[in-house]
């Protein structure tokens, strides 16, 4: 059933982690690669933001955000990425995006953000170009 667990309500008992946003960290060639999966919207974007802030605070200033596993990305998600780019720039760092899905790329295109971000087709290209 593909409809299961898109969201969770507050519950009286301890709650399992939300399963609609995956955030996995891989380190490669001096880059912190954050692999994002699921849906990035106003419900889940705060977790993405926190995670990116935490990375920068821990000294990671070369970050790749891998969006290949992202099924949905809205303006809130774009805002989080803009904020993260600004944050790494204040540390003279870099932020690269990996995105291959036309549906997600389109959101960057129509907002003009393809001119703001470096977007690559694979993590290899992103860390190679850095």
């Amino acid at each position: 059933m593909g409809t299961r667990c898109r969201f969770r309500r507050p519950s009286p008992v301890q709650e399992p982690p939300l399963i609609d946003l995956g955030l996995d960290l891989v380190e490669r060639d001096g880059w912190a690669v954050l692999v994002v999966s699921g849906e990035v919207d106003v419900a889940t974007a705060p977790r993405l933001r926190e995670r990116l802030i935490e990375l920068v605070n821990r000294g990671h200033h070369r970050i790749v955000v891998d969006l290949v596993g992202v099924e949905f990305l809205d303006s809130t998600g774009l805002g989080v990425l803009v904020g993260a780019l600004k944050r790494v720039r204040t540390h003279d760092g870099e932020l690269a995006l990996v995105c291959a899905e036309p549906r997600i790329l389109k959101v960057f295109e129509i907002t003009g953000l393809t001119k703001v971000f470096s977007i690559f087709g694979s993590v290899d290209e992103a860390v190679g170009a850095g």
Partner: protein
Amino acid sequence: MAETVALEIPARPDFLALARLIVAATAAADPLLPEDRIDDLRLAVSEACTNAIEAHQRVGSEQSNIRIECRLSPEQVEVEVRDHGAGFDPDVLVDHPPATDPARLDHERGLGIPLMRVLTDEVEFRSTTDGTTVRLVLRVSAVRRGR
């Protein structure tokens, strides 16, 4: 505090799948409901919606909507299906011959309400000549007790 998700669909078979979709997705918000219980609820609600759609068809009002309301609370998931058909008396329903009786094969219908009763923890019908509301309840505690 209960949270309510409501769906209104035209009283047409084509839209049944939408009702199932929303009930399953809403019930999945309850981390304590295992997937097989969500399947049970999905089928029970689908049966109730089928009856609602058929009730509208019988009075020629496929144009008006049926409403499916899901209420989540810590204790239970409750779904109400409301139609504007002609109503019926839930206490007067045909029983089937036993499965081993050859006459069982003469009955292609009449399994919807029995299914609802087995699949959920509570079924309530409120029916008047202006329409019917079916209330289906899954208790979260019944799940926790390993039901």
